[in-house]
Each structure stands twice: as C-alpha cells, then as structure tokens.
C-alpha cells in the first residue's frame, strides 16, 4: 500500500491505495463519490471523466497513485457554492441533454474542459471534442445543443441530421 494525498473538489483527502488502484476506484469506493461512473472500464466511453490538474482524463485509465498531489475535480464539485446547478449542468437540463443520465457526469466534465480551452466552440468543434464520450440514449444532438447554449451561443440553428 502507498499513501496518497490529493485535493478533490477543493478538499484535501488522503488514503492508502494499492499500486493497481485506479483513480476511479479511489473516488468511488474510498471517497464514496459515486457520481463518476464506470461505463466500460476499457477507456472507450468517457463516463469516468474527471479533471486532474484542470485536464479531462479517464479516471478508469489512470492510477490513483499517479494523482498523488494533484488537484482533482469530479461531477460532485461542479454545482455552484449555493448548491444550484452550474451553467453547463443547467443547460443539459434545459436542452434535454440527458435521458438515462449514465454518460452525463463524463459529458459535463468534458464540456467544462472544452469551454475552458475554447469558450465559443463551433458545433463541429463540440462534436470533435466529444469523440471520447459515448451516449447510448440521446443521439448527441441535445448534448451538443446544451454545450453550445452553455457557451452563450444561439442553438436554434442546429439541425437534426
């Protein structure tokens, strides 16, 4: 066992982990932050995406030990301080960007990373950035709409292809 210390959603946390403990296991099993989902466990679906030092990563494909000393943000850290939904989360609700909701934590974390890098993305840029996030329900259009709306752009123009 190695001991790790990291900041998760603004709070310092520590724990003992095995070498093989994945970041997503540490978050879900040890910290009980079960908002981060495991859809595939094979780096394909993006449901497990969190931010590590501000960058979107798949928490199922990163060792907890690699995150020692890092600043981690999960879906639980996305709401505003008063508990209301963040702009991106609210946009997902307003534009029906989710159905079963399984992919949503990863979608929201990816969207947040995109809008930080590129505050006014085009529709094509949003779709390209979502390449690592799989949704089996929505058909993506409403997710793309929600992200464009969260960036403050007009969304009525998006055609359902």
């Amino acid at each position, binding site marked *: 066992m190695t001991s790790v210390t990291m900041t998760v959603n603004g709070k310092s946390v520590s724990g003992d982990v095995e*070498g093989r403990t994945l970041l997503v296991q540490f978050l879900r099993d040890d910290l009980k932050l079960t908002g981060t989902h495991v859809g595939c466990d094979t*780096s394909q679906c993006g449901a497990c995406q969190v931010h590590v030092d501000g960058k979107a*990563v798949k928490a199922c*494909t*990163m*060792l907890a030990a690699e995150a*020692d000393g890092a600043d981690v943000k999960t879906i639980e850290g996305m709401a505003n301080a008063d508990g209301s939904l963040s702009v991106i989360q609210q946009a997902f609700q307003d534009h029906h960007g989710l159905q079963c909701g399984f992919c949503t934590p990863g979608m929201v974390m990816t969207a947040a990373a995109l809008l930080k890098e590129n505050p006014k993305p085009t529709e094509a840029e949003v779709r390209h950035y979502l*390449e*690592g996030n799989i949704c089996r329900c929505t058909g993506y259009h409403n997710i793309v709409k929600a992200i464009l709306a969260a960036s403050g752009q007009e969304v009525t123009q998006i055609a359902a292809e």
Partner: protein
Amino acid sequence: MHNFEFVKPGTISDAVAALGGEEAQALGGGQTLLPTMKQRLAAPTTLVSLSGVGEMVGVCTNDAGEICIGGATTHAQVQAETASSYPGLSGLAGQIGDPAVRNRGTIGGSLANNDPAACYPSAALGSGATIVTNTREIAADDYFQGMFTTALDEGEIVTEVRFPVPMAANYQKFVQPASRFALTGVFVAKYASGVRVAVTGASENGVFRWSEAEAALSSSFTADAVKDLSVPADGMIGDLHGTPDYRAHLVKVMTGRAVTAAQ
C-alpha cells in the same frame, strides 16, 4: 489487473535503475498499458512511472533547428506546442484518440508500443526523426521493426524524439471510428532532400515508407503525381473493418489528400 509496486522516479537515471529490476516496466500515460494489464496480457511486478521525470517533458528547438520532444510529453502538449513550429505534427497529435487520451498518452509510449495503427510512428518515419534513448540515438528508419516491434532493448526508454522540420507536411487519417485509431493513415513531408511518405494502419509489418510515391512526389509535389501508382494488397491488414485491397486503395487516396492539404 494483478497488483504491482508503483514507483515514480524524478530523473532518467533513477528511472533506468528502477527498470533494471526483475519484471519492471515503464509507464507512460498508461493509455495502452493499463488496458493491457486489465486484460492480464501484461503483469509487471513493478511499474516505473515516467510522468515525474521533468527532463523528459516538454518541447524545444535545438541548434540544428530540430524540434525536440521529451519522451514523456503528452499528445495534447505536442499538439499545443508545435502548432506554429511544425503544424503537420501538431495536426497529427490533435487527431490521436480523444481529448482525455491526448491529456495522458505520451509520444514515448506510443513509439515504444509501435501499434500498427498508431499515428506517431508515421510522423517519426515520415520526418526521418531520431529516437533518443537513455543509451543511444536511433534513426527512425532503423527503429520500427514490424508490428509492436522496435529496436528498443529491454529496459531502454525513449527520452526524446528529434524531428527535422519539413517545408510542408500533412497527416491524413482515415479513422476507424470504434477504436479511434487509423484504419489507414499517411504522413507526407517535403524536405529539401526529397519527399517522405510514411503509411500506418495498413501493413502487417507496421509503419512503412511508400518509396514509389516518394520518388514521384520528389519530382512533382502534387496529388496527380501519385494518381497512377498502386500499392500491392499483398501483406496489407485484412480484418472486419477493411480488406487488404481496401487498405491498399486507401494508402493512395490518403497520400493524395495529404499532398493536397500540405500545399
């Protein structure tokens, strides 16, 4: 995944020493190795993380004008930091996998793995790059030795990759959408000494140079110059996603597109 001891050295020499241990293996971004270990296709007893080796992270230009990329530099960092100095390379890095893969995966890990459908091997071979390890410098032409096979010895690590900067270059990737790897990808680079064309995703022997196209493009750098050439389907990969004939055809089409895009 079987358990292992995790170590994170801070220097190349400490990393090399740790890799000297029994069944120790290097960990780059883990984007290939961790899934492999989950399937128990690899089970090292010690994983030596290279992410803390500061001297292996970053992009710079050396006195010879080559772009030097540390072996533990992520795809995202290469994409961002070569955008103006080597746009063809930056464009390739930005097409690897997806943003999360690019934020963890490293150039050294990709070149060490030498997946037959990976993107970087085509840039390294197509640029005539030099692969620098803890013990030597290896020319790209000698480095790639077939599917998942390289000139690297046991415990040897890629510390840096040096790319001579071409006058024009472009990478065209025909994406296999399920894996996000290249079904076939072609990297074309035009140097004063001639044009290099490197093909990934197509051959059962991994990345290769298409010499007929190189000769034709060195006399005329236009998509038309390759129009009447053909690549033999012999030795091309055939799988669920494409037959050998289909891949051979893609090699030519993607080469033409890369030349046009490089103009």
